């Protein structure tokens, strides 16, 4: 029953995997907005960050327990081995989730470009550019993406230090108001977890990783949440009540920052966002093609990559033009449920099945 699959020829180290996930996760941090969960006190979300850190950590345990005894096969393969055709449908749910996450990220970027950066730019141009480059990125394989993410990581760290230095003088401690209530904390946590698409990436990525996976997952989770706390601290401190009306608080904070001759640092913010978006969509595209490769064949995987990129371009553009549809589709509760389904419910179900049937 069990097919022994050869360990992939494309392998990355656990450090590379952690950095790649961190770079992809930056997207959540840069675009984080408490308004998405119908609350307006961003400072309360520092508690949400701690809760989110713990919950993400707990939800990754079943995935790790499933992976460890059989490192060559990822969850997708295990589903198909244990459940046959039903397993293929479950695998396709993961592919759908990755596609959904890509569309979500591109839509947010589209909205930003259309409303803030350059309203004259056609959203088709934006989607086409992002879609094509990330198609190219995915086709280069996980090794190329991991190596590129490593270099981007250092660029991000340098930019963050730059932004930090520019924003610290603008911090006003009066902006840090006492925490208002648990409702904000809960909705903030739901908002954070729902947008934590990288958790689901871990499900299918692990067989490509060699080295100490436990540590790398812990550091990824810890550092990405720490980074979010830092972002919240900086934006709340420098913007105060002004951020309650802002769609992209981090961007607004970057626009008021200045160092020397540089008047605004929003181009740094945009640079960070674009590179992170590229890494994330490329990684998820790669994972989609990998799912199809595992279920079907290499040729199907290539076609799947092409179709997922085309779908991403068309769907993200059309939905970006329709704000009501966007609000309906990317409702925080729905995204949260979908994320929980692929990162917690399905792995736990498989784990229980394995334990009870002792396969």
């Amino acid at each position, binding site marked *: 029953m069990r097919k022994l699959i050869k360990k992939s020829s494309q392998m990355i180290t656990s450090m590379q995997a952690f950095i790649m996930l961190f770079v992809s996760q930056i997207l959540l941090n840069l675009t984080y907005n408490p308004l998405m969960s119908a609350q307006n006190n961003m400072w309360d979300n520092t508690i949400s960050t701690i809760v989110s850190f713990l919950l993400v950590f707990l939800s990754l345990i079943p995935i790790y327990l499933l992976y460890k005894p059989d490192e060559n096969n990822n969850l997708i393969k295990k589903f198909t081995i244990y459940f046959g055709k039903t397993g293929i449908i479950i695998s396709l749910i993961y592919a759908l989730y990755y596609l959904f996450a890509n569309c979500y990220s591109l839509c947010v970027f589209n909205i930003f*470009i259309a409303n803030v950066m350059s309203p004259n730019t056609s959203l088709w141009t934006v989607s086409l550019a992002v879609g094509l480059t990330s198609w190219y*990125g995915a086709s280069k394989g996980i090794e190329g993406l991991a190596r590129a993410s490593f270099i981007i990581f250092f660029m991000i760290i340098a930019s963050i230090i730059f932004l930090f230095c520019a924003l610290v003088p603008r911090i006003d401690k009066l902006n840090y108001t006492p925490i208002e209530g648990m409702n904000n904390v809960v909705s903030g946590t739901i908002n954070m977890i729902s947008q934590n698409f990288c958790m689901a990436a871990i499900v299918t990525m692990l067989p490509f990783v060699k080295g100490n996976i436990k540590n790398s997952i812990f550091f990824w989770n810890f550092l990405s949440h720490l980074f979010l706390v830092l972002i919240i601290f900086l934006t709340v401190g420098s913007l105060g009540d002004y951020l309650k009306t802002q769609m992209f608080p981090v961007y607004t904070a970057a626009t008021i920052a200045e160092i020397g001759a540089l008047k605004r640092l929003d181009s740094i913010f945009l640079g960070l966002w674009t590179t992170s978006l590229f890494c994330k969509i490329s990684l998820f595209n790669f994972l989609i093609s990998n799912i199809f490769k595992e279920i079907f064949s290499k040729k199907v995987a290539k076609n799947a990559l092409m179709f997922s990129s085309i779908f991403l371009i068309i769907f993200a553009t059309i939905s970006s033009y329709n704000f009501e549809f966007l609000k309906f589709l990317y409702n925080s509760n729905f995204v949260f449920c979908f994320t929980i389904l692929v990162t917690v419910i399905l792995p736990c179900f498989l784990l229980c099945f394995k334990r009870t049937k002792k396969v």
Partner: protein
Amino acid sequence: MQDDNKQQDKNVNKDNVNKDKESFLSNSLFENMNFLKKEFDSSSDLVYREFKINGTKSAIFNMDGLIDKSNLAASVINPIRKYTFSNKSNDEEKSPKEKYVYIRDNILSTADQVETKTYDEVIKFMTAGFAMLCIDGCNLILAIGIQGFSFRGISEPSNEIMQRESKEGFVEPLRINITMVRRRIRSPKLKFEMMTIGSITRTDIYVCYLKDVCSAGFVEKVRKKLNKIKISGILAAGYITEFLEESNNFSFFSSIGVSERPDTVCAKILEGRIAILVDGTPSVIIVPHLFTEYFQSFDDYTTKPYFATLTRWLKYISFFISTLLPGLYVSTVTFNPELLPNQLITKIAVSVATTPFSLMFEALLIHLIYEIMREAGLRLPKPLGHAVSIVGGLVIGQTAVGSGLVGEPTLMIVALTALSSYVIPNLYEPIAVLRLIFVLVGGIMGTWGIMLMFSAVLVDLCGKANFGIPYTSPISPFSWFGMRDVLIRANWKVLSKRLSKVQEMPGSNLR
């Protein structure tokens, strides 16, 4: 009986017709000569001289212009003639084969002699400048190495000028290039393996490596790739490089290095790389070539480490300036002028307002003019090159700005970009193309477009590997040990402690 003879004649004729290059030589001098004449289609540079060695018909044939005639006379013809006169009576009982062996072992005074058995070998040696001694009745032909043809003298390579090092550069003849490498690495572990590539040109190439330093698996991989090359002719090293790349995927950058300097090639061989010397070209191929090597030069290792580090950083900065600056300039001024200080943006705005074209078009136009001037300067004879500079610099530059066709800031940006691109001349090709792409992307999409394109180029770089070694190693995958010669140039006391082998780079599977 007559019928038998006729049958034999028929068979001989049939054999002649069916004879191909790989068949063995005939005993008959006449047949052998006929075959060669037919093969070369009585080409005028096929020269032969017939004579007798104590009653046995013999001949020497060679390609005109490829041999040293005085050497032929002194080392081959004269000794044979002397032998003929002095051994006339003793020699009559010897068979042609015995005469051949005696001449080969005792008469000829040349060092390089090869026995050939097939027509293919004969053609190969003849076209390589050997004189062929053929004796009637013997099915062997002796190839005598007396090559001599005029070639360009050893001089400093104009593409890789160094300040303090050797002024020697590789030349076109392969043998001289080999001696230049051997003179620098006097180790018996230095190996040269000969191969012939090109179905028509039959170009000799040498695979050169240091045994024990270069892994056997790596040498085997290179051998396999070279053997797989199916091409009619190799006239330059560049013909082979594309066959040595890892895959058919498109990439802006090359993972094959080329150098005209023997010292550079030797340094690479010492690091476990493989050099491929191609006959007829002064460029030597080095595999694998990593991205960081574009920023290293031989001068770095003879100057003080702090200065070498400074020049290396200048090269990195120049790379980014020459690739990204025009695109960033166009995107910032077009989409985000608020990022620039007021005084600067005012000046740029005035310039943009007085010129008829958009900034993107203006930048593309100046780049195009610059590339045309550069191309013209490269191909023209030197005296005319000055005229191009005058026309380019004074006429086009001054008048374009004076007439208000292009703005001064744009011209300055392009000039700075052009200057920076010459700091790393080996990267000129990808830089020139990427620069134009970045200008286009910056003009259409703005900063985010540039960052997106930058990410794609980064993945292109990082996704590359050659012979199992990641192209961006040791930056990504990262290694502290490898970084001692990347962002800084550590001093020789540190560098000499442990040899940096290319197969020990992080991410390498060439162990």
